[in-house]
């Protein structure tokens, strides 16, 4: 028996587009106050840019824009003004190389590897500030387990054992080499039953998309053995789980 669950993160794009306006409030509500990465100063020092992570992505939360974006991923960007004597004017974000990176309604979309400047333009078209951002091709997907308090516990092993009724909170991270990349992306989960449980028609393990962007819960329903496959960013990651009574 095969269960397919498509978790389309892009469906939350309308939410992300509002984040630059809502700022910390929206992100704080979305992920317990940990949804924003630390800021990166612009070249002119007029502004700082920070990624709106929306999940416990290790690269985002710990490093802000101190990592490349994963090709194929999206990330919201907030701008923090540091210009004395003026509030922030109405701004426009755009990139220098749209083939590599685009900015639309406060959301960055990474297309192919390379570097692009992100320009913050004022109402008169003058560049208020800019930062260079990198896009990298992910080479690995990694599942990171968190506890309910949002503390990272470590990478999920490829073969693991659960107890029936366990619920494991995980985040799917993209990496290039061993460098965790930024961005939220569409993921498709497949659960293949290798050894059915006492109720053959019922799932052994379910993958449930959390209310928070980028989080998933592995739920052990009944004893048995399954192979869980996740596909994203043209990569595949597989793990085998045994559920004990």
């Amino acid at each position: 028996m095969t269960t397919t669950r498509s978790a389309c993160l892009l469906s939350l794009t309308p939410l992300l587009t509002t984040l630059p306006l809502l700022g910390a409030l929206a992100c704080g509500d979305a992920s317990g106050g940990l949804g924003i990465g630390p800021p990166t100063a612009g070249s002119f020092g007029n502004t700082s840019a920070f990624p709106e992570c929306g999940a416990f992505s290790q690269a985002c939360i710990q490093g802000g824009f101190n990592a490349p974006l994963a090709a194929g991923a999206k990330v919201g960007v907030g701008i923090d003004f540091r210009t004395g004597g003026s509030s922030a004017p109405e701004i426009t974000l755009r990139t220098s190389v749209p083939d590599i990176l685009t900015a639309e309604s406060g959301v960055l979309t990474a297309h192919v590897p390379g570097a692009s400047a992100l320009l913050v333009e004022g109402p008169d078209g003058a560049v208020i500030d800019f930062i260079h951002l990198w896009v990298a091709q992910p080479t690995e997907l990694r599942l990171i387990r968190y506890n309910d308090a949002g503390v990272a516990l470590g990478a999920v092993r490829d073969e693991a054992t659960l107890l029936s009724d366990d619920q494991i909170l995980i985040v799917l991270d993209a990496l290039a080499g061993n460098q965790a990349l930024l961005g939220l992306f569409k993921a498709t989960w497949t659960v293949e039953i290798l050894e059915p449980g006492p109720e053959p028609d019922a799932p052994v393990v379910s993958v449930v998309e959390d209310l928070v962007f980028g989080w998933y819960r592995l739920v052990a329903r009944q004893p048995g053995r399954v192979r869980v496959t996740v596909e994203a960013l043209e990569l595949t990651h597989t793990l085998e789980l045994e559920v004990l009574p």
Partner: protein
Amino acid sequence: MSRIFPPTRALAALLPTLLLTACPVEEVEDRAGLYAITAAPPALEARVNNTPDAVPTITLTEGAALGVACWSTCEDECEGASLTAEPEDALEILPAYATRYTYSDNFVLIAKKRGAFSLRVETSCATTLYRVDVPAQPASP
């Protein structure tokens, strides 16, 4: 009390004039140019080279942005300075709001395509032609 004889006094009065006329008057050509006000990001190039007696050069990796400020010997400094890329689509030239450099006209240059181009900097008293080298971005590891 000391006394200064009239001829000596007259000579002392004339001395500054004599010294000035002894110095050759050199006409200095007005100059204008750019200097970088932002740093290059890792692995990319973004710099201005104004080495004397050499062709002034800007090196800017394709897709990179560089903040520059104008300087000149004109009385009005860089007021109304204009930057023109040749060909025009080689560089994107944008006005910049760089609060740390408010005494000068500031710009952001973005390299739009690879190759060797030129950038003309015109102020009220001088014009400088920069050679612009635009290398490709480094390949992904």
